[in-house]
């Protein structure tokens, strides 16, 4: 068969994951900052975050559903193995997804008192912390190469992901999402003192992301040997490392110099390269070490149809998504003012 359609589907999968991390990931990061809001303006911080993610989180979240659908349509054998072996972390992640989304909506639309709001807020924040932790753990497990082919006893369902490497990927995901969120908020926020809060959050989480990147890399030597070899032995290894490092330092520098637009660009680029570094190091495996994009894919007819559907769907989806983001994320004074001084009536 022609590999063009297969590569296209795999490419769309990677791009969808990237967009999910850059948008949906930042929404989780917003929840993390809701949980860790501190200082004299913590109420305003929470309010700003709520307003920033309110209109978009549901659309951002659909990228995850799209990833699941592409995975089971394009690579059903890989989907089946992931869902079987990683049943436990994925089930817990779903609980996190449900609680995060509903707690946020209940807080936004319920006409309740401050104490109830705080309760939903705490639930929203905790779920936003735990969900990416489990998402990262899952991705770590997919990369580790410890997934049994025919698991049957309970330990077979624990061993693939209960490792220091998987845990470190989980923490890495949290740090990365918090970093994206704080950097976006620093860019979008117009109120100077609040912006400084987000700036310091962004700098702290940028450093944590860098540290965690190092930890994950070191643990991958034993935790995910195929990824480690892929990351260190390929022709693109050093350019990729340098590019990622340059973007990371540039983001930090831009945050330091208060050049928020540049900071946002560099942070998003850094995260994209991290994801793509992992994906290319893992290529051609979908699930290490047995399932590749070749042996886990659907029939050629399905792959072609899926590629066609993805292309056609993008024609509808991408302009609409862009319209949504521009409507709520463009930074003119009118929207900036409105987005800060919100009341419950004008948001709904």
């Amino acid at each position, binding site marked *: 068969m022609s590999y063009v359609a297969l590569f296209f589907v795999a490419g769309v999968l990677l791009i969808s994951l990237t967009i999910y991390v850059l948008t949906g990931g930042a929404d989780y990061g917003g929840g993390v900052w809701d949980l860790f809001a501190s200082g004299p303006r913590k109420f305003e911080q929470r309010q700003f975050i709520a307003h920033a993610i309110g*209109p978009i989180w*549901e*659309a951002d*979240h*659909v990228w995850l559903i*799209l990833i*699941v*659908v*592409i995975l*089971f*349509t394009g690579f*059903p*054998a890989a*989907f*089946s*193995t*992931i*869902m*079987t072996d990683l*049943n*436990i972390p*994925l*089930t817990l992640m*779903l*609980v996190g*997804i*449900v*609680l995060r*989304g*509903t707690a*946020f*909506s*209940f807080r936004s*639309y*319920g*006409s*309740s008192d401050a104490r109830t709001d705080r309760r939903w807020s705490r639930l929203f924040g905790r779920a936003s912390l735990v969900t990416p932790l489990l998402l990262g753990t899952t991705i770590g497990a997919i990369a580790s190469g410890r997934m049994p082919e*025919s*698991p*049957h006893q*309970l330990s077979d*369902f624990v061993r693939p992901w209960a490792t220091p490497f998987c845990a470190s990927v989980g923490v890495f995901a949290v740090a990365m999402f918090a970093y994206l969120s704080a950097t976006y908020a620093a860019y979008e926020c117009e109120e100077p003192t609040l912006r400084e809060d987000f700036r310091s959050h962004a700098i702290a989480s940028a450093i944590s992301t860098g540290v965690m990147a190092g930890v994950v890399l070191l643990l991958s030597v034993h935790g995910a040997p195929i990824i480690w070899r892929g990351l260190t032995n390929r022709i693109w290894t050093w350019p990729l490392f340098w590019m990622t490092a340059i973007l990371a330092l540039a983001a930090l520098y831009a945050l330091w110099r208060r050049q928020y637009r540049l900071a946002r660009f560099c942070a998003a680029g850094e995260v994209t390269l991290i994801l793509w570094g992992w994906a290319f190091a893992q290529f051609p495996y979908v699930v290490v070490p047995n399932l590749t994009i070749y042996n886990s894919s*659907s*029939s050629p*007819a*399905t792959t072609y149809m*899926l590629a066609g*559907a993805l292309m056609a*769907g993008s024609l*509808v989806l991408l302009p*609409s*998504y862009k*319209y949504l983001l521009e*409507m*709520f994320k463009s930074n003119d004074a009118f*929207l900036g003012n*409105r987005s800060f001084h919100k009341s419950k009536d*004008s*948001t*709904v």
Partner: protein
Amino acid sequence: MNHLLTARAQMGMSLAFHIVFACVGVAMPLLMAIAEWRYLRTGDEVYYTLARRWAIGTAIMFAVGAVSGTVLSFELGLLWPGFMKWAGGIIGMPFSLEGFAFFTEAIFFGIYMYGWNRISPRAHLAAGLVFALSGMASAVFVVIANSWMNTPVGFKLVDGKPVDIHPLAALTNPAALHETIHMTIAAYIATGFAVAGIHAFMLLRDRNNPFHKKALAIALAVGALAALAQPISGDFAAREVARLQPIKFAASEGLFESQRGAPLAIGGIPDVKTHRLLYAIDLPDLLSLMTYHDPHALVRGLDSFPQHDWPNPLIPVHLAFQVMVGAGFALTALGLWAGWLLFHDRTIYSSDWFLRALVAASPLGIIAVEAGWVVTELGRQPWIIYGVMRTAEAVTPMPGLAASFVLFTILYFFLAVVVAYLLWEQVIESPKKEEATAFAAASGR
């Protein structure tokens, strides 16, 4: 409970929970768009308030629908990896299209909910219509995926594996048409009557409130029109099921014995041991007549099939079928009553008894939807892919599924209570004139 039954229970519970929110996601955007359109046409601010107030409830329901739908997309693999490995490449097509439709829905949901002050009134109404259409489209696609499980086509079976796959044929499988029509109409009935019942309840307490009058009129118009169309689609669906899945048909009608001039059984409890339907009222020849338009036609009963291919458990299939048909016809009758009132009194608000009936009937549409899915899903058992793969072959090897079943049951129960409370909070306060003015002022209109 054994392993398979636990997995089925978790899937069933998740579906039963999600379907309520999915129906609201399909129909509420239409109700809001109608209210907003009436506002643009008449300039009556009560309509504007109505659209905004409905939007709050819809936003809560939509969020729960989005996350419970995510749970389902994962549960397909978490509970039925054998099925997804086998069929993912075939039913992936409708699911991919559903993914895009739902994406569009989520995007325009955001624009609609938060864009009141940011785009022109016409653009906002258009966003509402796209929201409504994409909601309907995502329901249609996901039901197509389900219909394939009932009438699997688009592949050849070689050594137990599917080859020569035609995704388009799978997309246009024989059960797709009747299932999608029946479910889409059902979503408008369930939501329309649920909303109408709530506003009828408030009208009984406050007879001249213009807000609840207009709300009732719109919700009832949508619900009643759909309820008048549903018997036709139901008749079509039943005849298709008789043709395509005779076992499911026999189980839902409670027909054990193949016979000419088969009677239509009203009520009754199937007795699996004696192979008889107990305590039923039989209307002679009617089942043959309705199914084949011939009172002497042969209708195949359960006895034409080996007992290990019967739905297990069998009893709920017939009971749920009766509940669905009964609830559906009750709503059709209410639709006719509304029409008669409109014709005779020129108003639907005059009769206390009508309003009380609406309150009582408020949950019937949702009950009918739940019962209908019990018929579809339990009626397909013991197959996950009808005639091709048994549900037992598809289930995950993961031990201890009871834990996740209990976890999700508690979680969903908690959410149901909270949602009910929040909606009640929204409903109980009749908006006053001041609120309409405040909304209008906030929007700069």
